[in-house]
């Protein structure tokens, strides 16, 4: 039994089945890269893993127990970086991060916030209102969230979008360290990034074509 796994997952979005009969399994230190064309359900699968979305069939389990049995415990062990950055323009860079650090951990993570900002080259911008940040800098601030407080599982949706080469390198270093400490990473990406040893899940193979699904449900004439 794998630590973090999904069995026979079916995802339905707006009455359309995006993918069906999908399985995945991750052990400590593993990385899983989700591939597939646009609309193949990469983001939906990440949201299923986070518990934001419930599978129509199947179950996502942690150590054998379904994650929706105790969602708060599951939320405490994961960091989700979606394609929205969740950055508040009115707050400074450091304030943005310390809100999430405070929500994630029981104790204040003052040192962690500075260190996380430093990892992504944002430390000198700590006191700047986030509205002044560029798209890439906002992305880096969102990724820095993953670094505050310990979390076993990182779910990254297109993490390299808008990042420059040094930031991608910083992200890869952070992922490598996270995995060396026993952490798990699931990333959806089109970029050809070098994660070391990783497994791949091609969602195109589980996809259900539009026409086929519509016919089965009788929405469209054959």
């Amino acid at each position, binding site marked *: 039994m794998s630590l973090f796994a999904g069995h026979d997952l079916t995802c339905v979005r707006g009455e359309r089945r995006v993918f069906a009969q999908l399985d995945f399994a991750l052990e400590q230190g593993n990385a899983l890269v989700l591939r597939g064309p646009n609309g193949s359900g990469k983001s939906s699968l990440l949201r299923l893993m*986070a*518990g*934001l*979305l*419930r599978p129509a069939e199947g179950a996502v389990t942690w150590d054998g127990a379904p994650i929706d049995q105790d969602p*708060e*415990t599951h*939320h*405490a062990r*994961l960091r*989700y970086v*979606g*394609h*929205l*950055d*969740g*950055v*508040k323009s*009115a*707050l400074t860079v450091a*304030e943005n991060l310390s*809100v*999430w650090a*405070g*929500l*994630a951990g029981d104790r204040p993570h003052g040192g962690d916030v500075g260190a996380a900002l430093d990892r992504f080259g944002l430390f000198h911008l700590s006191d700047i*209102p986030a509205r002044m940040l560029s798209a890439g800098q906002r992305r880096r601030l969102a990724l820095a*969230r993953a670094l505050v407080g310990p979390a076993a599982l990182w779910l990254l949706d297109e993490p390299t979008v808008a990042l420059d080469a040094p930031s991608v390198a910083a992200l890869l270093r952070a992922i490598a360290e996270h995995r060396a400490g026993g952490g798990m990473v699931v990333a959806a990406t089109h970029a050809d990034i070098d994660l070391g040893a990783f497994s791949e899940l091609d969602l195109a193979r589980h996809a259900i074509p539009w026409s086929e699904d519509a016919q089965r449900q009788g929405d469209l004439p054959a």
Partner: protein
Amino acid sequence: MSRFLLIVRRDLRIAFRQGGDSSMAVVFFVLAVVLFPLGVGPEANVLARISSGVIWVTALLATMLSLELLFQADYEDGSLELLALAPLPLETVVLAKCLANWLLIGLPLLVAAPLLAVLLHMSAAGFATLALAMALGTPTLILIGALGAALTVGARRGGVLLSLLVLPLFVPVLIFGVAAVDHAIAGLEARPLLLALAGLLLAALALTPWASAAALRQALE
């Protein structure tokens, strides 16, 4: 508890930095009430007769206008997803946002109400009851409004829909709120009506966070 306060502080800080939105509700409240003497004429006894109703209806509209955006900004920039994924119940997040909004909107309305009552020639006997009734009524309005805001988050033209959903639910607060003040002015016992307002507040506290959180989860799916 510390996480609850963290969200309250975050919302207050964002509101203070942005100014605008929350002070707008209070300015609307004051301006709308000031329009009444201009509209119905300056006769003191007419104004005094309608004063409690005018203040309550205007406070209700001001609350509703301000709540349209309670979850919208967080929904659009992705913060709401992250709040839903924080290791605390979404119900607690909803309560924290309601408390922050009460401090930003409910409290200024509460302070402004007796001043506007003077303007409308309300009898001084009603002031204390008005303040007390507003203190019990405004949190209820915000909790109910939050449910409407959670149901309409992500919807286009959500504002109109919000008022259709929420205004009927505001009616009990309006009825008991106005009646409490009128009773106090007439020298009758206002306590049972204030207790009814307290009961409405407790019911809203017990029920709306769950409904709001369920609506938000639905919006995030």
